[in-house]
C-alpha cells in the first residue's frame, strides 16, 4: 500500500483534516475527539498492529502542540503517522490506551514532558520525571537552576 491508498482507506470511514507526505510516509491530521476511533480502525481494519510510539512536537510559533502517533504494519511493512493539533494552552486529548496497551506508558511520558492531558487514561502518574518539573520538552521551558553561559 502506498501513501495514497492508505489515505483513501482512512477517508472511507473517518475524516482526515489535512494530510501530507513526508519521505514517503503518510501524515494524516485527525480531529482530536476521533483519535481513539481512528486508532481502533487502524488496528482492526487496516492491520496496523503496532503502535511504535506516541510523542509530541511543540510549535510555539503556531501556538500548537502536535501529538504524533506512529503506526506500523507487520504485514505490509507500511508506516502511517496520525497527528493531532492541540492548543498549547489547553492541550487535552482522549487516550488510546484502551486500543493499544503500549500507549499507556507512551502517553504518560508525553503527558509529563509536554503537559498534555490524556483524558480517560487509567493512571496518568509521573513516569520518568520527579515532581516539580513541568513539561520540560516544550520549547519555552526554562530550567530555573540553569544559569546561561556568559557571552564570550
Amino acid at each position: 500500500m502506498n501513501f495514497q491508498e492508505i489515505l483513501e482507506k482512512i477517508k472511507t470511514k473517518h475524516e482526515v483534516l489535512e494530510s501530507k507526505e513526508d519521505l514517503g510516509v503518510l501524515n494524516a491530521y485527525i480531529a482530536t475527539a476521533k483519535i481513539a476511533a481512528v486508532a481502533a480502525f487502524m488496528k482492526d481494519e487496516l492491520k496496523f498492529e503496532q503502535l511504535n510510539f506516541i510523542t509530541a512536537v511543540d510549535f510555539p510559533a503556531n501556538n500548537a502542540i502536535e501529538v504524533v502517533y506512529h503506526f506500523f504494519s507487520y504485514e505490509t511493512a507500511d508506516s502511517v503517522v496520525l497527528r493531532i493539533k492541540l492548543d498549547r494552552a489547553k492541550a487535552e486529548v482522549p487516550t488510546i490506551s484502551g486500543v493499544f496497551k503500549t500507549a499507556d506508558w507512551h502517553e504518560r511520558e508525553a503527558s509529563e514532558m509536554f503537559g498534555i492531558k490524556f483524558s480517560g487514561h487509567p493512571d496518568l502518574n509521573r513516569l520518568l520525571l520527579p515532581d516539580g518539573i513541568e513539561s520540560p520538552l516544550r520549547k519555552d521551558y526554562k530550567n530555573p537552576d540553569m544559569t546561561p553561559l556568559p557571552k564570550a
Partner: protein
Amino acid sequence: MIKAPFEMEKISDEEYILNMGPQHPSTHGVLRIVLKLDGEVVTGLYPDVGYIHSSVEKMCENKKFEMITPYTDRLDYLSAVNYNWAYVAAVEKLMGIQLPERAEYMRVMLAELNRIMSHLLWYSAFGMDVGALTPIFYAFREREEVIDMVEGMTGGRLTHHAFRIGGFKNDLQKDFLSRLEKFLAKFEDRICEYEALLINNVILTARTKGVGILDKDTAINYGVTGPVLRGSGCAIDLRKNAPYSVYSKFDFRVCTGKNGDTWDRLKVRMDEMRESAKILKQAAAMLPAGEFCAKVPRVIKPAPGEVYTKVESARGEFGVYMVSDGTEKPYRIKFRSPSFSNLSVLKEITIGSKIADVVAIMGSLDLVIPEIDR
C-alpha cells in the same frame, strides 16, 4: 518517587509490599519495582522508572547533528552500535546521503558483532539472576574477543561511537577479517557449550518453562519487540520485515519460540547468536572494496522534514523520530527504545508467579535501564 496504585489502598492482612530496587542486584540498573506479595506469590506489580532520566531528548535539541551520535551510544551501552545506526540513518535519510557499498557491509558486520556482544552479556547476567555464577566467565571469554575486534576498529570497548554520518571514520583494521574468521570458526561450538551449561540445565528448564507466558496478541498490543516478541512466536524481525541497509542480501532465519514462556525467550537469543554468526560469515565473504565513507557536506544541515528510522537492536526495535527545521540542530528528537515497551508488559506476565520468577522473567526481557529512562 511514585507510589504504586495498590499502595494507596488497604491491602489484606496476608499481603505485604516489597520494594525491589532502586538498588537491587537483579534490576540491572536503577529500576524500582514495587511488588505486592502474598507469601512468595506476586499479587501486584508496579514498575517505577525514571531514576536516571537525563533528558537526552532535550539535550539533543541543543546539539549539532554530528554531536549527537555519542549520546545514542549511552542510551543502550550494550548494543551501542545499533543505536548509532538508527540515528545516523535518520540523518542520512533526511539529507539523502547514499552510502558506499563497503560502508553498508561494514555496518552490518559491526552491528552483528554488537548483537553477539549484547547477547553474551545478557546470557551472563541471566545466569547470575538465576543463581548460576559460572556461565559469565565462559561467555566473557568470547565477549572479550568480540570487544577486542570492535575496539581495534573504533577505539571503544563499550560506547564505541562506531558510525559517523555518511559512513565511518576509518576503514576496517587489516587483520579484522582474519580475526573474525578465527572467531567464527569456534563460535558455533561455544554456543553449544553455553546451552549445555545453562540453557538446557534441568533446574533452569524447570524454572523457566511455563513461567511468564506472554502470548502473541498481548505482546503486539504492548508494543513488545525483538527477541521477546519472537519468543512469543511472532516471526517479526525488522531485518527481514522492513529490511534496512543490505540485510535483504543475507540468508538468515528469524528465530522464534513456541509458547512465549521465559525459556523460549532464552532459546531465541541463543539461536540469534548463531544467525548473527551466519550473517557475519556471509558479510565477510561479500565485503566489497571501495570507499568506507560517503561524501558528506562539512556542515550538516538537513532539509526540513520528519523521519522515523528504526533498526533491530539486540533488544528489539530502536527507532529515532527526528524533526528537522533546516538548521544545524534537530528541532525535536524522540528515541523509541525497545526496553521501554518490553518493561511495560512485565506486570501482565508476572502476576501469580513467585519472587524468584520475577527475577527470571525480568532477566529474560533483557532490560537496559538507561534506554528506558533516557
